[in-house]
């Protein structure tokens, strides 16, 4: 396997013993800035100004996202909002944040529904590999965690949120453990802590390279055992309001029955996750198939302001060969254990623990400047020198700590303990999102948000292990906050949506629910509801009916 790369692989092997002795340096502030400005996709200028909604006039929205935010709702103008389900709290999203919010509400006596367009747990959470940060080491503290994350986020993090994250770390690990999560331990029974990019002390807990899987399967099981009503295969199509700018429910679409379901709720918690499947600028993504930014679209139409959406995380180590694995995550923990990032010439061009955004930029720089490796299918990447792990830590270490990596590559006859693997940045995380306060309240009454759909906590660059902690801390917090501050039930109207529709003139429809490449659509056309699609710029009169097509271009 990888005969085509034989020459370059030879160079990597020949430079290995020298590299083992000498770590590469970290880029200084000026070098980092230059790498980011010239090579990081956030700086490529593929953005535009939004013309409608709460962020109208803001200049920097990725083109793919801007189109969705300005698009029309797939709901017909004359849609009936008569409630089908009455609940107290509606959680939208079945990943770690949604599940944590649901568990926080258990025992409150409040009726809770959790809706997900996929199945409970099918999410980015379950795909997280490397770990979760909590200040548990003796020489660590929530303040050190805070300082690390703030510097990593370029000082742009919302400090109030970040302080909560860091102070809640240890207790959240305790909570997970009580639910039955098993993290890797040292022989003395203490948690095994690793460094991650930008951590000043070891702070990352893990369950091999399946940390998100371990957390999600435990949370999923706990939710199944709770009194929460789970609506799987139910996509959130629109939020509804009381006619006075308070969110009072949502329109879901039952994929199995192919029909809309109106939910009346006293509060809605958005935990819909990120948007990696928009595949900005043609990048591959490490995200699950549902990560299409639906929550951003829904909240935006209700008047929620969005923050930092010009900032996305391109994870430096996405798989780039074989083709079938393109975009899939190769955890940072492998780099933190000593696998170096090396170019086609065998040069160790940057320290592999540089901040994610800088490292991603540096890898793109190597390939653009001709020092990358080209695969038989014309993709470019650089080497992640995985055999170094066993050389540094003893034979069998890679297989023991990273069974997921070994498992994924073995069907292609590639053994990462023996052969380096090819990597290229992959669209991984939505740094920005909905603006929320310390109680997870959005700027719109009745609407809370938590997890990747929110923005501000991580500033402009998130450190490894802070998103798994984010979804636990703020997911639970959203649940607690709703309990304390629950509005009375209000009527279900499309007032905010209609308001938004007056300003927009885009014929496209959003959310898109599934990646464009999947060609998957929700079959709204088959519903019994007669749809009267109106030209939003002219009148409220119906002019015949046609089934709405959310993918009409």
């Amino acid at each position, binding site marked *: 396997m990888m005969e085509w790369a034989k020459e370059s692989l030879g160079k990597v092997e020949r430079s290995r013993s020298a590299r083992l002795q000498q770590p590469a340096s970290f880029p200084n502030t000026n070098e980092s800035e230059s790498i980011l400005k010239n090579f990081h996709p956030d700086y490529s200028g593929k953005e535009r100004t939004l013309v409608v909604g709460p962020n109208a006039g803001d200049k920097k929205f990725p083109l793919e996202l801007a189109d969705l935010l300005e698009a029309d709702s797939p709901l017909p103008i004359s849609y009936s909002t008569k409630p089908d389900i009455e609940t107290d709290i509606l959680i939208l999203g079945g990943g770690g944040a949604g599940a944590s919010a649901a568990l926080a509400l258990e025992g409150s006596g409040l009726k809770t529904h959790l809706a997900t367009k996929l199945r409970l747990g099918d999410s980015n959470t379950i*795909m997280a590999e490397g770990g979760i940060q909590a200040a*548990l080491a003796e020489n660590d503290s929530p303040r050190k965690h805070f300082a690390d994350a703030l510097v990593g986020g370029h*000082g742009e993090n919302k400090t109030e949120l970040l302080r909560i994250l860091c102070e809640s770390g240890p207790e959240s690990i305790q909570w997970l453990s009580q639910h039955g999560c098993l993290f890797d331990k040292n022989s003395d029974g203490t948690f095994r802590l690793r460094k991650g990019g930008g951590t000043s002390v070891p702070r990352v807990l893990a369950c091999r390279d399946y940390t998100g899987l371990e957390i999600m399967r435990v949370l999923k099981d706990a939710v199944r055992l709770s009194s929460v009503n789970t609506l799987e295969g139910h996509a959130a199509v629109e939020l509804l309001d009381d006619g006075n700018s308070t969110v009072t429910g949502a329109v879901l679409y039952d994929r199995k029955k192919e029909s809309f379901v109106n939910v009346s709720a006293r509060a809605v918690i958005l935990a819909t996750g990120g948007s990696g499947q928009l595949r900005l600028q043609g990048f591959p993504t490490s995200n*699950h198939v549902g990560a299409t930014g639906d929550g951003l679209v829904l909240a935006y139409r209700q008047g929620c302001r969005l923050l930092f959406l010009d900032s996305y995380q391109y994870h430096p180590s996405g798989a780039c060969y074989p083709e079938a694995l393109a975009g899939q995550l190769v955890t940072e923990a492998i780099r933190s254990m000593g696998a170096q990032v090396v170019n086609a010439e065998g040069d160790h061009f940057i320290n592999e623990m540089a901040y994610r955004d800088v490292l991603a930029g540096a890898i793109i720089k190597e390939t653009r400047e001709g020092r990358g490796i080209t695969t038989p299918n014309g993709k470019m990447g650089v080497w992640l020198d995985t055999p170094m792990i066993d050389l540094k830590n003893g034979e069998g270490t890679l297989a023991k700590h990273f069974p997921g990596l070994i498992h994924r590559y073995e069907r292609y006859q590639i053994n990462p303990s023996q052969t380096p693997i090819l990597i290229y940045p992959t669209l991984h995380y939505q740094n920005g999102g909905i603006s929320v306060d310390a109680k997870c309240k959005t700027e719109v009454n009745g609407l809370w948000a938590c997890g990747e759909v929110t923005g501000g906590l991580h500033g402009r660059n998130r450190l490894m292990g802070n998103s798994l902690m984010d979804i636990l801390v703020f997911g639970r917090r959203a649940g607690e906050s709703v309990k304390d501050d629950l509005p009375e039930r209000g009527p279900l109207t499309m007032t905010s949506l209609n308001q938004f529709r007056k300003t927009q003139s885009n014929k496209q429809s959003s959310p898109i629910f599934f990646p464009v490449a999947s060609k998957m659509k929700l079959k709204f056309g088959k519903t019994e509801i007669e749809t009267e699609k109106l030209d939003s710029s002219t009148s409220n009169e119906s002019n015949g009916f046609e089934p709405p097509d959310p993918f009409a271009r």
Partner: protein
Amino acid sequence: MKKIEIKISGKPISAYAGETIVHALWAAGMSESVQTGCAGGVCGACTVTLRYADGRPGGTELACMKPVEEGMEIFPCPVEPDKAVEPVANADALTLQSVFPTVNRCTKCGSCTTACPMSIPVMDSVMRMQEGSFDKVAEDFTTCIHCGLCRFVCEDKVKPHSMGLWIRRSLGKSQVELKIDVENSDRVEKEWQYLLVEGKQERMQRAKIFRESGGLPE
């Protein structure tokens, strides 16, 4: 890339050699024929059974991880989730038997091990469950994605992955409670005051100093 032909539920479609089943179905406009979730091999949604053109024994796979090959026949095989069972701290083999009465019905046919897309030694682990070797079971099921195939193929209604999770969670609940140190509140407050200074640039500068000196500067 080489074009090949495969079949999904008997219907022929063309695909590129080397792409995964999921991507082939996407390109053919047949994404709804196999349920997907993560498309990264960890959620267990896209379970399928396969038959090969050359007569090799087929079997179960995850459509998002399996590359297509000439003449491959794919059949969707969605598995409904099992009912969750409350974990029990300090559980032993008898506790397991009381909540999963089918554990001893295993006839050692080995289908579960063959079906597992994560290469877990499922049948051997069921033996360990019967013995109560729960630490080893927990290790075996570290990589379990709960696709449910081991339960699906079991003719004796043994539920290996459900028991695996139950054992892992039960062990987790038996862990010694994590002690969280109470820190000197004066110092804590001083450190926060230092770090939360007004002004982005000053705050950034202080955070850098704090990181480098491992605390407040002397």
